[in-house]
């Protein structure tokens, strides 16, 4: 089951890389970013983590991983992070919320819509977290070099 999920996330991330016209040599790396993100995303609930926490952590790991890969492959990190967050997208939550709205169940609809927004916010803050960590590390290294 997990293997199937890993293979699917790998394939869908690589397909998104093609959709965004990334350079050929970075497609595989984009797929790996998506796969690692999904691995973390499906592993954390086993440790009793909530959906929000696991989404946040996996988005942060995708972001960090794409920054590291962007240094090694010498391409902008957007190439990987865009494809990497695809397996985390809260598609079924958004669908369920629309379904509830259409069925006149507004309370349930708003609950689910808020949940969707919070998951989207968790993805965003995870990405931000990764970017800030890399920026801080880079700044610290730059300051260290200047001091010498």
């Amino acid at each position, binding site marked *: 089951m997990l293997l*199937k*999920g890993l293979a*699917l*996330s790998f*394939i*869908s991330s690589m*397909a*998104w890389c*093609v*959709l*965004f*016209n*990334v*350079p*050929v040599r*970075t497609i595989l790396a984009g797929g790996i970013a998506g796969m690692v993100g*999904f691995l973390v995303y499906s592993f954390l609930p086993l440790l009793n983590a909530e959906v929000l926490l696991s989404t946040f952590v996996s988005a942060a790991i995708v972001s960090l991983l794409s920054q590291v890969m962007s240094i090694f492959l*010498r*391409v*902008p990190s*957007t*190439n990987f*992070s*865009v*494809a990497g*967050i*695809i*397996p985390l*997208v809260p*598609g*079924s939550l*958004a*669908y*369920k919320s*629309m*379904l509830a*709205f*259409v*069925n006149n169940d507004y309370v349930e609809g708003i609950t689910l819509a808020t949940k969707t927004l919070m998951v*989207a916010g968790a*993805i*965003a803050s995870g*990405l*931000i977290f990764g*970017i*800030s960590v890399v*920026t801080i590390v880079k700044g610290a290294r730059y300051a260290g070099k200047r001091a010498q």
Partner: protein
Amino acid sequence: MRFAGTRQYRGLDKDVTVLSSDLVMDTCLLAGAIILKNGGETYRTEETMARIAQAAGMDDVNSSATPTSIILSFRCKGLDHTRMVRTPSRTTNLNKITLVNDVSRRFVSGGITLEQAYLTLCEIDQKKPLYPKWMQHLAAATASGSFAMLAGGTWYDLAPSALAGLTVNLSLEYLEQFVRMKFFTEFSAALLGGLFALLAVTVFPELHISIIIIGAMLPMFPGIAITNSLRDLMAGDLVAGVSRGVEAMLTAISVAVATAIILWFMR
């Protein structure tokens, strides 16, 4: 002319090997326009232009970019130069951004001359997308199918959701030529994809419409807008970050409304 040399003379007006300031301006604006047109971040546009202009020996370099326009100004031998370009159409082609990044890095480190940089940028601008159209549609279908399976579909849902994703991507491309409004294009494409899902469920009642619709809407997920908006916000470019965020939100809303209409038919 090697530019590693000219940089040492910056500030001493009389000894500067004069690069034609027009060529510097053209090169910077072309680099910026390519980045902005192909889905790059705003802060990357500003930084690239400023780096090229500074490496070419210009003083007082100021660059400002919003998602639809670029302004660059610098001072060369006591004369101010300012120009602005607009970039009305936007696509996503991350390969070009990587190439422009590479050119600017090589120019700044003195590997190529300004003329070479300009010619290379012209070539990059004319380049066709890296992957042919059919391959992109195939990729959209693959992404939709595998995402639908990730959302909990059975093997039977794979083919219909892949076809629905293909429908969405094809109609996005086809409608874009007639309707110049991005959000209406997305709305109609989502509607067509949803209608396909409805058709599939009507013909084969054992399929899950929820899974097929979730898969079908994936090619419209505004991933690049969200990522760029966050990166711009983090880089302190608030205007660009907020406007990209609103773009992502409008796309999400138009897809959600289209889904709601389809579900209303189902009721």
